[in-house]
């Protein structure tokens, strides 16, 4: 079984290196007009950059986090940054970063990537989501600490645009979430993103 998987999924070492400046061009893109795809990605990049400018400004207010022996410094800083972001984005709504065009593009990328999955890989994802059955994401909401962060498919990370290190993609049921790691905030999400 592992041999089949290994031959159907190229290993990362075989994929072209991505530029360091996030978000970068996806490694694989659906068959859409190149200009349209480029424009959509440029728009996504601009919105990510705009979010990150706000994040960094607020993070400066809360202070940089370094290695610490005191857990309170970690949790209080996360909460403080989260509250500042929530206040600053009080009007945030679904689709602010994942615009309709980005949603269409990302759904196509995800559909294409999922089509390459073996039955065993599909089973992986389904079981991982069992612990998130009653979790509906809301923009600007704290990701509930009691809920696990389900492992994100490595193949999809290769296909989607790279994010700044302060942000990450996550899957909650069929929703693709954009999560602020340092603040533990759901920045945006795409409903029904996975097939």
């Amino acid at each position, binding site marked *: 079984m592992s041999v089949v998987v290994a031959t159907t999924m190229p290993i990362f070492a075989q994929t072209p290196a991505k530029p360091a400046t996030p978000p970068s061009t996806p490694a694989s893109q659906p068959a859409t007009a190149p200009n349209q795809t480029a424009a959509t990605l440029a728009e996504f990049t601009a919105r990510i950059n705009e979010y990150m400018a706000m994040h960094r400004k607020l993070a400066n207010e809360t202070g940089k986090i370094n290695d610490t022996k005191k857990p309170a410094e970690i949790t209080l800083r996360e909460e403080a940054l989260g509250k500042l972001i929530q206040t600053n984005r009080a009007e945030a709504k679904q689709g602010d970063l994942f615009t309709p065009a980005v949603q269409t593009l990302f759904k196509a990328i995800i559909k294409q990537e999922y089509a390459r999955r073996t039955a065993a890989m599909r089973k992986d994802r389904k079981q991982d989501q069992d612990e998130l059955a009653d979790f509906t994401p809301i923009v600007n909401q704290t990701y509930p600490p009691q809920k696990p962060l389900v492992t994100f498919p490595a193949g999809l990370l290769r296909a989607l645009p790279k994010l700044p290190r302060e942000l990450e993609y996550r899957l909650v049921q069929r929703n693709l979430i954009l999560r602020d790691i340092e603040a*533990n905030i759901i920045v945006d999400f795409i409903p029904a993103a996975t097939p």
Partner: protein
Amino acid sequence: MSRRVCLLGVVLIASTAIAVAQELTLPLAQGSVRLLVIGDSGTGDTVQNEVARQMANFRAKFPFDFAIMLGDNMYGSERPQDYVRKFEAPYKPLLDAKVEFYATLGNHDDPNQRFYKAFNLGGERYRTFRKGNARFFALDSNYMDPDQVRWLEKELQASGSDWKIAYFHHPLYTAATRGPTVELRAVLEPLFLKYGVNVVFTGHEHLYERVKPQKGIQYFVAGGSAKLRPGDLQKSAQTEVGYDRDRSFMLVEIAGDALHFQTISRTGATVDKGVIQRQTPR
């Protein structure tokens, strides 16, 4: 270089007999690398404390210097008091004895745990460190992005250590009900084979399992150091030994080309033991 390590393999000589409670079977060789392996430990409940006491009991006979944590270091909330209840208090005897903990992140862990000094992640989600003749690779299996994969390949390639030991949360091989994370295996296994990783420790499944060597690599699942799924192991042809009746942890001793292991239950019984012999490169 990569061809050389690719040819490395392991030979396993093990016994599955349940040893007498509290008996240490490790050789305590002079100058050996000694460590504790725990996984899925952060419940903060009575059971975690009982297992932790057993670890301290065994450390009196087997003075390990460090511990690796296979993720799910804290379940549920991660308030400052949770760090105490789920980590600092149970392992106080070990922390007081200057045992260093090297954590990885599980799916129940807030990635901001990487800033907690006692977890030795240095603010990163993955890292490598050397102990004696072994190099350890602590990976974040929750988020295996291209950056991490490139980093891993670079570090594996540069590693000159005799033993290469990877550890992370999600198992690449397991006979537990939920099964292995096959997508992760597709990414990691080629690198492990190419660069000669000898042993892999994972958690996530709340039991103990020694998988038969897969393509020359020895895999352990040790995710039952506080959480337990009794009877969850669906023993398969790949399973060498499994234990899902109670909590457990592992003691490991690396002496030259031999890696000795002993798996101990909450009550102090030895549920598995053996030695992995690292083959000399051809």
